[in-house]
């Protein structure tokens, strides 16, 4: 009889098994072998056996390593320490086998051989090592040109979709923006000094394959201002091909009913197009994003803790983004300045903006941008809300006072 009957059960079935993965790592690593054992105990006890606690890290950095310990170290010495190392991934999660192999070699030598590719924020997550290995791991990855990612109350490792590297929808260079922000804000990323975490995700188009609108404090979503380009010859091919019912699957699903199609010719009322992407997604050969490209900037997404889950909301309806992205940096720094000044401990920027009022927040960020002579202007805009306020509890800044005759 196996010592781990419940975990063994999850090696069966058609979906690739994480148990097989841990066992594969366990061929070389006592840490991975004890990971199986502690997991079996969790399945039996129906509870976690991990605890946080103790400050661990590498010299000169306040982030990038998460300390983790098992609550029964005598019984499970292999996972007495089970720290995580976050290695900054490449933009778009693209790797040469040579580059990825460098990390694999280091991790086989100094860790459990278990990874998450990737963590929810985007880092390569190296899962399970002990305190003594942390600095050597850092030295090894540094020598190969890699660096740690963020953790704690800092700029978290920015991440992005595959963008212009392999996608015709991308209206911004998501990979370049992500790498530039990562490398420009290294101090903010490695040395926590914010009220709380700050995540940035960059999506090349409104399909938002990197889930920025739900997962990033700062969500950068590619868009365009001019007309959707129509290749009528390709529309004809779709009609002739018959693989798609254009009227039913495209025209009728347009959220603003701005497509005119007579069975042959397609026209779009671009003044009423909301850039939802549906028609382009479905007729990718015939329809494509416009030429006047840029991004919509949204702010404030977060998970429930503390004040409730939020999706990001529009803060800059349209912005051109060209290297070296100075306008974006000026905007980000103005956000940080306001949040850093008045944000409470563990208050995400979305919660801060809610507490302050979006109108006030916009005004304050706008004032700072002006003070800093930024080319970016920020003023209240109708695109920041779904609709104007419904309640009459308005705090007026402007009012008149009786002027005495004296």
């Amino acid at each position, binding site marked *: 009889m196996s010592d781990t009957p419940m975990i063994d059960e*999850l090696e*069966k079935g058609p*979906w690739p098994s*994480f148990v097989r*993965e841990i066992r*594969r*790592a366990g061929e070389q690593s006592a840490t991975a072998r004890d990971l199986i054992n502690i997991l079996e105990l*969790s*399945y039996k*006890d129906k*509870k976690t056996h991990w*605890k946080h*606690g103790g400050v661990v890290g590498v*010299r*000169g*950095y306040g982030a990038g390593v998460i300390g*983790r310990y098992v*609550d029964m170290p005598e019984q499970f010495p292999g996972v007495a320490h089970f720290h995580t190392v976050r290695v*900054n991934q490449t933009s778009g*999660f*693209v*790797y*040469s086998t040579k*580059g*990825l*192999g460098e990390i*694999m070699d280091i*991790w*086989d030598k100094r860790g459990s*051989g*278990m*990874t*998450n*590719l990737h963590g*929810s924020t985007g880092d390569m997550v190296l899962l399970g090592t002990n305190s003594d290995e942390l600095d050597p791991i850092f030295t090894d990855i*540094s020598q190969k*040109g*890699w*660096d740690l990612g963020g953790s704690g109350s800092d700029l978290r490792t920015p*991440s992005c979709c595959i963008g*212009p*590297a*392999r996608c*015709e929808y991308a209206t911004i260079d998501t*990979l370049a923006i992500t*790498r530039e922000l990562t*490398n420009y804000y*290294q*101090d903010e990323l490695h040395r926590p000094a914010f009220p709380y975490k700050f995540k940035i995700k960059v999506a090349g188009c409104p*399909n938002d394959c990197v*889930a920025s*609108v*739900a997962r990033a404090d700062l969500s950068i979503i590619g868009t365009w201002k001019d007309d959707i380009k129509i290749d009528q010859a390709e529309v004809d091919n779709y009609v002739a091909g018959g693989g798609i019912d254009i009227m039913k699957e495209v025209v009728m699903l347009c*959220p603003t009913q701005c497509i005119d199609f007579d069975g042959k010719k397609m026209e779009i009322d671009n003044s009423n197009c909301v850039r*939802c992407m*549906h028609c382009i997604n479905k007729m*990718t050969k015939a329809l494509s994003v416009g030429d006047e490209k840029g991004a919509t900037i949204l702010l404030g997404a977060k*998970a429930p*803790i503390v004040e409730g889950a939020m999706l990001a909301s529009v803060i800059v309806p349209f912005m051109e983004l060209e290297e070296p992205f100075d306008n974006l940096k000026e905007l980000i720094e103005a956000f940080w300045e306001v949040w850093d000044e008045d944000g409470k401990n*563990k208050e995400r920027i979305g919660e801060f903006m809610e507490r302050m009022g979006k109108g006030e927040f916009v005004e304050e960020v706008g004032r700072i941008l002006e003070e800093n002579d930024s080319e970016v202007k920020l003023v209240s805009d109708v695109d920041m809300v779904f609709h104007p306020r419904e309640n009459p509890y308005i705090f007026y800044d402007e009012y008149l006072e009786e002027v005495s005759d004296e």
Partner: protein
Amino acid sequence: MAEERITDQGAKDYKEMLHPVMLKNYGQWKYHEILKPGVLVHVAESGDKIYSVRVASPRLLSTKSIRFFMSIADKYGEGYLRFTTRNNVEILTDKEENVESIIKDLADDGWPIGGTGRTASNVVHTQGWVHCHTSATDASGVVKAIMDEVFDDFVAENLPGKLKMALACCLNMCGAVHASDISVLGIHRRPPTVDYNMLGQICEIPTTIASCPTGAIRQDIVDGVKAMKIVEDQCMYCGACYTACPNMPLADPLNDGCSIWVGGKIANARTKPAFTKLVVPYLPNNPPRWPEVVDAVKKIIQVYKDNAKKWERVGEMIERIGWAKFFKLTGFEFTKYHIDDYKLATKSYNTSAHLRF
């Protein structure tokens, strides 16, 4: 030999990591097609093509398996691969004739392909009992149990539209489960317990009190010794105090479990991004296969298959047919827990006479 310490190098240059065809045609892509589930071709203005073979992954990967993927990329793909935002692996090649060989070699080691188009894509998920100290359920195990049953919908385009599932093992939600078609969310139902015996030896009381985002922890005196107590009504089960003080464990085998949420989306296609909404407030943790959770997910997928129009997402279908019908079709019980009682709850009250009977 003392090596000079290098810091703050940042992210490695992605240009060194791009398949030569992707580098050459950077920003010059014309269109893409799904050749079959799990196989994409992207065609550049130049006529160049790059093929991507999308492989299922449990996200929790051993270096050995990653090296296996690398060996496939070296053998057929000029040495380049990538990972998707939903944690699939993609082997890249510019040679169409290599695609079937890649698929065969992957299959020989137990790796299926799929997750493109109208399929159930890979489940975004968190760490669970494999690594997390605040988890209310496991993550990898529940996902494995679900995907073993939903497998056919990953490898073939059986669904009306895209189906994106996510799992987070507690309310901290390291995975964005608040905006997926179907979400499993681990929940604690009781505040942390305070282990008074060990408290003073390990935990700093002021630090622990300060760690609570809602101010629910108060100083207390137990048997003449400084201790802490928790105001239960104020606790939202975030585990911040357990992070600061290992003697305030949040895990509770009797009460921890899973809740099920539906109807969220991220993409702007057709309808706006949307939050998930509660359908099942509590299901027990029953490892190793969580049958109650798997059944609930399968039920939702069946209703989606039977009722959605082509391209409709789960939330769009429910918006069209109404929540009452969705509850009727799935058979889930509607309870007081389904009625929001947090900030702005009144926004979800039905103020109309729009009802379906």
